[in-house]
């Protein structure tokens, strides 16, 4: 037929069929593929999990230090331990909050770097690895989460935690800006070591005030 051409003899030797992969080459390719798959799975384990990816960026310091994060600065002026907290309600009545543990009251000051912002709920990281959110027995309008943190001046307020007495040693106070509806990853936060060792904590607890009076709003 038409595909049979006289040129066939000349072109015959110039055409070399591709060599079929040998057994060892197939094995090598398979081993390489398996190694790549194992490497991919292994790499996944080194990646950050969701919690770590969206975690805050932490600046640390101690009591009395000014800890400057990227968007704000904060410092803890003093820490008190009390068995009850008294604050004025909206109607002027005094409300008292009691606990089976202790209240830790941290006097906090903060200022912003560029834009006004508010703090989210403060947290207390204790020495045994637990995380306590600020208590809701005290109205949030009395605490550091209420005022706007603005540029140019320091805003002072308190953060109140209700914790078991045994959890005090080694605890740190964590402050971060309030996150929006669409959560922002890598927010700045400050972690301030309250300086409680066993002796200090025991002394503070034994000397704890019966009632701590929260200053009313200015």
């Amino acid at each position, binding site marked *: 037929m038409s595909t049979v051409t006289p040129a*066939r*003899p000349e072109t015959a030797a110039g055409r070399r069929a591709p*060599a079929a992969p040998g057994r060892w080459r197939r094995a090598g390719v398979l081993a390489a593929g398996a190694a790549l798959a194992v490497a991919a799975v292994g790499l996944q384990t080194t990646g950050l999990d969701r919690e770590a990816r969206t975690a805050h960026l932490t600046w640390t310091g101690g009591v009395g230090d000014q800890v400057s994060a990227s968007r704000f600065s904060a410092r803890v002026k003093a820490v008190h331990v009390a068995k009850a907290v008294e604050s004025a309600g909206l109607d002027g009545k005094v409300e008292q909050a009691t606990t089976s543990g202790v209240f830790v009251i941290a006097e906090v000051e903060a200022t912003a770097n560029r834009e006004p912002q508010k703090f989210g709920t403060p947290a207390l990281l204790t020495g045994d690895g637990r995380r306590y959110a600020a208590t809701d027995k005290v109205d949030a309008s009395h605490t550091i989460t209420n005022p706007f943190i603005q540029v140019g001046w320091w805003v002072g307020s308190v953060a109140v935690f209700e914790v078991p007495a045994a959890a005090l040693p080694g605890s740190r106070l964590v402050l971060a800006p309030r996150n929006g509806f*669409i959560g922002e990853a890598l927010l700045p936060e400050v972690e301030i070591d309250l300086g409680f060792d066993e002796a200090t904590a025991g002394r503070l607890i034994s000397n704890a005030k019966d009632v701590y009076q929260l200053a009313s709003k200015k």
Partner: protein
Amino acid sequence: MTGTPHPENEGRPDWFTPQENRSPAEPRPPAETWPAGETWPPAESSPSPTPGAHSGRPPASGAHTGPPPVPGGRPPMPENRPPAPARPAPARTPGRRREAPRRRSGGTPPPQAPVDAGWTPGPRRTFSDEQVWPPVPKPAGEPPGASTQPFPAVPGPPLPRPVTPGVLGAGSGAATGTGTAAEAVPGDRAPATPGEAAAAAPVPPPRRRTALRVGGAVLAVAVAMGIPTWHGYVFYRSGNPAYQVHTVAAGGTGTLMNVAWKVGVEQTDSLPGARPIKADQRWLKIKVTRTSLNTEGVIRRGDPEIKVKHPDGRAWQTEVVDRSLPVEVKDHKVGVGYDYNVVSLVPEQVAGEVEVEVLPSTIRVPLEEESVEDLFKRAGTEKTEPQDQVLLFRR
């Protein structure tokens, strides 16, 4: 072949029944019983293959990519007709072999298949030869393409073919094989001798397509990194639009979206009813006046966003104390100014420098009370505008 025997040239081919293409004068046993490896050793009748001409070509692929070799002494076949099919060698598995008796049970058995009437375990049977090559002439009435029988797998080197760069598909190879097989004569096998193979030109290396591969890799990486980046940027811009700032001179009026805006700023040390402030702080009393220029401006009567900013980027919180905007739409007059009274607490040293930014609302509030049906009808028909237009009032 199934049920009632019918003519071979009936329109639709039977795909599973072995075609009986032999001429009446040349009967043969059924195709399933053909022992391919035993009756046709082409290596014996063909010239000795040259190692250089077909190194590495597996024998099985020769049946598909090249024409099967032709044993010497065969007469050339008539042209324009595919060769008669035959069952390939792998079809001789027991499972396949059982197929023929079952299909044949209802019809007329072929005349020379008495041993294959049914499968029964027993000693190995031997079968007589069957001609598969050259193809037996088929009945004249059979339409082209009626036969689907493949070529048998031919153990031996493929015939050389003209070099057609870039076309290596199995389909073209099969087509070529069909054509050449009918016409191939023993003389065509001449180039396979060792002398000619050695004298041939050096083999051109296969095309590497390095640029294509590198380009593809670069493109893949660019796409894989670019799409998440673009998606993240779009998400970021959904919350942080690229603001377009329209600067208004001190005391001037800025017009956006059929509304004229005017801003007046006052400093004061104390506000009635407000808590006392520190010595280094000042209150700013800001009056933002909006005037609708036409009905479209009335539609754009959503509350604006008001910011107090220093030129260096620092910002302070503002709070709208009251507004003189009429509650009812029908009281909203075109050309009449309505005020927003805003207060802001700023440090004293920047109280004379800070500027007011007004971001008019892009929401279109309809003029009449809208029924829920109309609201749903309108929903989605208007393009939502990003609130990215900024009026910056200089001090």
